[in-house]
């Protein structure tokens, strides 16, 4: 499990029911592509976040399957339309088996 992994999530300050809201997420991860060769000539094994899942009260917002073509510190921005107050949960799945999670409660005005 990688150390020092930080997640960051940005939601709009005010949310009204039925509004389309933009969610921005970031996780610190080196996203080693598996294509690079180390100074000794050995391939550096792949180590990436291969899946990202965002749900709202258990229902999927987006489910991303991620390849090594996504840059270091993967950033994702997407839209959600929510019917009322609830909790967003975010999960990043690492190649090494670790799952990093975060959640954000949203109170609809």
């Amino acid at each position: 499990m990688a150390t020092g992994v930080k997640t960051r999530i940005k939601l709009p300050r005010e949310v009204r029911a039925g509004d389309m809201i933009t969610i921005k997420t970031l996780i610190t991860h080196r996203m080693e592509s598996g294509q690079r060769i180390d100074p000794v000539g050995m391939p550096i094994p792949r180590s990436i976040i291969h899946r990202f899942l965002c749900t709202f009260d258990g229902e999927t917002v987006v489910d991303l399957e991620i390849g090594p073509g996504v840059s270091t510190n993967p950033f994702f921005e997407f839209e959600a339309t929510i019917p009322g107050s609830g909790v967003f949960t975010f999960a990043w799945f690492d190649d090494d088996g670790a799952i990093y999670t975060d959640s954000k409660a949203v109170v609809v005005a």
Partner: protein
Amino acid sequence: MSIGRRGAMQVSLGALLCLATPLRAQDILAPPNSATLEDVIAAFSDGSSIRDGSVTVTLPEIAEDGYRVSVQVAAPEATEILLVAPGNPVMPVLRAKFGPMAGAARVSTRMRLAQTQDVLVLARMPDGSIQKGLKPVSVIVGGCA
């Protein structure tokens, strides 16, 4: 957890063993590299016809740094979007499935581009058909993808 003298010996012995049995490059790299663009498209479209549609790919025309290129893909009504970089060693970059809580079939990220290429986006529509969008991008410094 503290590592005692015995633990340290075992770790260093393990490290030596790893060095003594080098993995060949192709063992690790073979599977992702073996897929051709046709394979990638066929795996996604699953036999459905592909036509040009309302898929938009937003990319800079010139990407100075191939290590991080901002990209937005959008296809109204789509249930699933696949972003492909045919000029990268591993072509599929991102596959997005939109659930019932998604607001729009749209996702932005930052991607690596190994060379100048036409970025391809495939979108699965609710009726099962596939729409595609293409966007050429010039890459100044290629990002090892």
